[in-house]
């Protein structure tokens, strides 16, 4: 186990090579094309009237006489046949919410769109929005998920019996262990509501293409084909009449993985007015109306033996799912996922978990990088440290005691997750060595001259990525991934066009898919063009989410290129008058003995000199659409151990990260530079979750942050210079052995940093269990202990 040599030597520009990105030059010259950069002739701008209150009945909307015709409400859309968003889960007991693209008589969160205003410029559209008078009769508010599930809580949806989208129960064989386990530790753990904050907000340009007779929606999305499906349902328009295009997209992280009400509105207005329209989300809109991620609450108990061997885990978990169920992931995916993944990378037998997707007067929850794993890891890894503390062992030793060992791989865990490969304990051992734990322990003992407290923390996780069909069929939500497809076409000049339905928004796919194709065909990267993010030009795909694109679409690209390779080989052999068995495709040419024909020459033959082709040539020619699924439907399992050393100032509560190590296993890396970049970026977001990011709400459901001055995302001086150590265990089930890696970096930092802070605070006898661990949280923990003493 360890650094297994895999397909791709790392040399050249195929799989494993650290090559520079094809997309860099245009972006470095400011010549990318984002939604906000697109201007169409006669285009109008949109601004939304948004609810200033969290829960109210709308008793009147007054539009000034001079702006009639420039302001539209749900009454207009409904009269035009627009239907509300319905994102239903097939899980038993799921309660359905209907989300109209503009509020229909009632608002359920601050920032909910109530009306849309159309003008020549955004500034003028905002002027009109400010002149619209909406009368709100305020209703009692659910601003906290735990209060929302108490008897008598106000109802977000009047016809529901309570405020729970879905309750799930997993496992149950825990009572005997609970009664007999030598060690029992319990914690209350919470993560805050966050905003995902891609640097580019959402945006959409919509127009009706009169020639093609199609609605063209150019939108900042991760999943154009799914947006098309959702638009079709809400607009009651055939999918063939809709084309969804994603241009350059400035980060997503999940926020661009849904059908947005604003997309529906823009599409409808463009058709209604027969004019191009544009909406660009501004930062305040994002921070207020899209505070939609991460908010979990756990009551969790771990049972263990005297060595710290886990005997069982028991938990109740609540996720604040907000006011509506989002399309396509639904309101229950996050909480229900908690039930299935809380056991993490550990091997134990007894488990019970009950989850609640709670409906509140907040923006609807959307899966954010790592989805439920960041919260789950935060909870589970605190429990490992709590067990270690109870049995008097080092936390890393207790991890080794419980992690699934390599000799058990592949391994089906207590919730029947199928871990595909890897050496989880080795990731811990390497992290312990790399962070130089002994040195920190000595420094802890000696004490710091400035009075700060040193702590070291670890967190280990495994991450199911590139989810298969069965899991999503089980959710019963509007989207189930099946075979991913790619189109590969040799151009008449011997280049290659690739078309995929996934969508790159920072993941470097223009480069990495070209590397995959180069690995198979030998065509140089500069002659390979990736077309993506356009329903009109690419095969159907559920899009880019769940760390799936390289596994799924990369696999499809390889499959399509292999079919092309075989066709090229046969034509090439014929041209050399060699038998097909003696010819090989190598380095961009078909070779037979000393003779060779280039792919360019073969392309010329197919397109320009077909009289020279063999009589039995494959009539599909030099263009292939191929589908792909990994050998296992269970997804891939990448994993990592994060280790962090911190200094905590007990006087001001400030945390400084002194060192940060990631030991991770993404299987075969197509481009190690890109993999590193995904991990660095993920860790930075995890540092935000751990220490800074929180959208506070008051009791009336008012968000208390609306700028980057009060919603803090980590900058240059907050994010450490992370050190990455790779383990390379190829997945046995995928092309080249790749595993999904895009989200992983964001999963473990809150847990590792929390454990490090608690290690530092140990001499004071206090712990923190809630993220973000701001100076206020740390100081109040310390003050609570002092007050009690």
């Amino acid at each position, binding site marked *: 186990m360890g650094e297994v040599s895999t397909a791709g030597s790392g040399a050249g520009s195929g799989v494993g090579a650290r090559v520079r990105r094809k997309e860099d030059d245009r972006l*470095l010259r*400011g010549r990318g094309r984002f939604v906000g950069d697109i*201007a169409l002739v006669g285009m109008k701008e949109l601004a939304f009237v948004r609810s200033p209150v969290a829960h109210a009945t709308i008793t009147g909307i007054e539009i000034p006489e001079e702006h009639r015709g420039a302001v539209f409400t749900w009454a207009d859309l409904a009269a035009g046949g627009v239907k509300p968003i319905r994102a239903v889960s097939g899980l038993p007991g799921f309660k359905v919410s209907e989300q109209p693209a503009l509020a229909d008589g009632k608002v359920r969160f601050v920032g909910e769109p109530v009306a849309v205003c159309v003008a020549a410029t955004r500034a003028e559209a905002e002027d009109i929005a400010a002149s619209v008078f909406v009368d709100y009769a305020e209703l009692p508010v659910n601003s906290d998920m735990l209060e929302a599930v108490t008897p008598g809580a106000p109802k977000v949806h009047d016809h529901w019996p309570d405020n729970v989208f879905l309750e799930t129960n997993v496992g149950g064989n825990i009572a005997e262990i609970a009664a007999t386990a030598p060690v029992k530790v319990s914690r209350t753990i919470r993560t805050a509501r966050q905003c995902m904050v*891609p*640097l580019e907000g959402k945006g959409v340009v919509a127009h009706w293409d009169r020639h093609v007779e199609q609605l063209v929606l150019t939108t900042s999305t991760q999943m154009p084909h799914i947006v098309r499906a959702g638009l079709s349902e809400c607009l009651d328009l055939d999918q063939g009449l809709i084309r969804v295009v994603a241009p350059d997209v400035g980060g997503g992280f999940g926020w661009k993985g849904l059908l947005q009400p604003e997309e529906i509105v823009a599409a409808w207005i463009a058709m209604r007015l027969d004019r191009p329209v544009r909406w660009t989300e501004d930062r305040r809109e994002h921070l207020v109306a899209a505070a939609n991620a991460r908010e979990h609450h756990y009551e969790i108990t771990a049972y263990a033996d005297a060595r710290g061997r886990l005997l069982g885990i028991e938990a109740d978990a609540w996720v604040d799912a907000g006011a509506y169920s989002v399309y396509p992931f639904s309101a229950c995916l996050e909480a229900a996922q908690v039930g299935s993944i809380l056991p993490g990378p550990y091997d134990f037998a007894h488990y019970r978990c009950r989850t609640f997707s709670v409906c509140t007067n907040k923006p609807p929850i959307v899966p954010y990088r790592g989805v439920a794993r960041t919260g789950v890891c935060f909870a589970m890894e605190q429990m490992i440290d709590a067990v270690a503390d109870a049995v008097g062992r080092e936390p890393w030793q207790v991890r080794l005691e419980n992690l699934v060992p390599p000799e058990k791989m592949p391994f089906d865990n207590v919730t029947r997750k199928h871990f595909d490969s890897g050496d989880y304990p080795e990731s811990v051992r390497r992290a312990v060595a790399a962070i130089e734990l002994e040195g920190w322990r000595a420094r802890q003992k000696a004490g710091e001259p400035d009075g700060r407290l040193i702590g070291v923390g670890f967190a280990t996780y495994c991450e199911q990525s590139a989810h298969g069909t069965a899991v999503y069929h089980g959710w019963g939500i509007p989207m189930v991934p099946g075979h991913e497809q790619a189109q590969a076409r040799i151009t008449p000049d011997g280049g290659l066009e690739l078309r995929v339905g996934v969508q790159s928004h920072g993941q470097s796919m223009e480069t990495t898919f070209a590397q995959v194709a180069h690995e198979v065909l030998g065509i140089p990267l500069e002659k390979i063009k990736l077309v993506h993010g356009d329903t009109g030009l690419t095969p159907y795909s559920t899009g880019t989410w769940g760390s799936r694109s390289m596994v799924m679409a990369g696999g499809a690209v390889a499959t399509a290129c292999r079919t092309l390779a075989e066709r090229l080989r046969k034509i090439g052999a014929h041209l050399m008058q060699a038998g097909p068995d003696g010819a090989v495709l190598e380095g961009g040419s078909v070779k037979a003995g000393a003779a060779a024909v280039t792919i360019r020459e073969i392309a010329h033959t197919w397109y320009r000199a077909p009289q020279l082709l063999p009589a039995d040539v494959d009539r599909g020619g030099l263009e292939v659409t191929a589908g792909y699924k990994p050998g296992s439907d269970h997804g891939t399992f990448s994993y990592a151990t994060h280790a962090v050393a911190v200094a905590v100032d007990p006087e001001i509560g400030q945390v400084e990260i002194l060192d940060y190590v990631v030991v991770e296993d993404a299987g075969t890396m197509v481009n190690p530079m890109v993999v590193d970049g995904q991990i660095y*970026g993920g860790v930075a977001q995890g540092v935000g979750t751990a220490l800074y990011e929180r959208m506070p709400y008051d009791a009336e459901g008012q968000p208390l942050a609306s700028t*980057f001055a009060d919603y803090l995302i980590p900058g*240059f001086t907050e994010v450490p210079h992370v050190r990455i150590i790779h383990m390379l265990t190829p997945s046995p089930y995928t092309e080249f052995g790749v595993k999904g890696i895009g989200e992983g970096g964001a999963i473990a930092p809150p847990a590792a940093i929390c454990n490090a802070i608690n290690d530092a605070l140990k001499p004071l006898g206090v712990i923190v269990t809630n993220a973000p661990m701001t100076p206020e949280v740390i100081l109040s923990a310390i003050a609570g202990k002092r007050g009690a003493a």
Partner: protein
Amino acid sequence: MSAHAKTISLTVNGTRVEASVPPRQHLGDFLRERELLTGTHLGCEHGVCGACTILIDGEPARSCITFAVACDGRSVTTVEGLDDDPVAAELREAFSTEHGLQCGFCTPGMLVAARDVVLRRPDADNPAIRTAMSGNLCRCTGYVGIVNAIRRVIDARNTNAG
């Protein structure tokens, strides 16, 4: 166009521009909407994220909190105007080598700020680079590639100067 529009005269990327602008229009919108220089990106429009950083008379400035009317008589340079700038060229090369960009949205502002750091702080170590760049936010890269890219350019210039 607003009845209160003011006429201004300024230089944009070396070209003289005369324009009638509404007093409330910020420089970022002016550059993007009127001059079609869409390389200047708007990430927050309240002066924190730094994506819209441009040069006014050679000094980095936030175009989102600068009114266009305040730029009468000034010289403005956007990322598009740095195509032939030698420091920017070195930075582009280094950003690509060190993977200092992913989605590319913060990148134009990063380049303008990084260029200023390279020119002003040839002595900067990595913590100094981080402090000097702390007015710009990136959500993709975790900053490592950007710091490495600036380090690479500073080191190369110091080696060549030495």
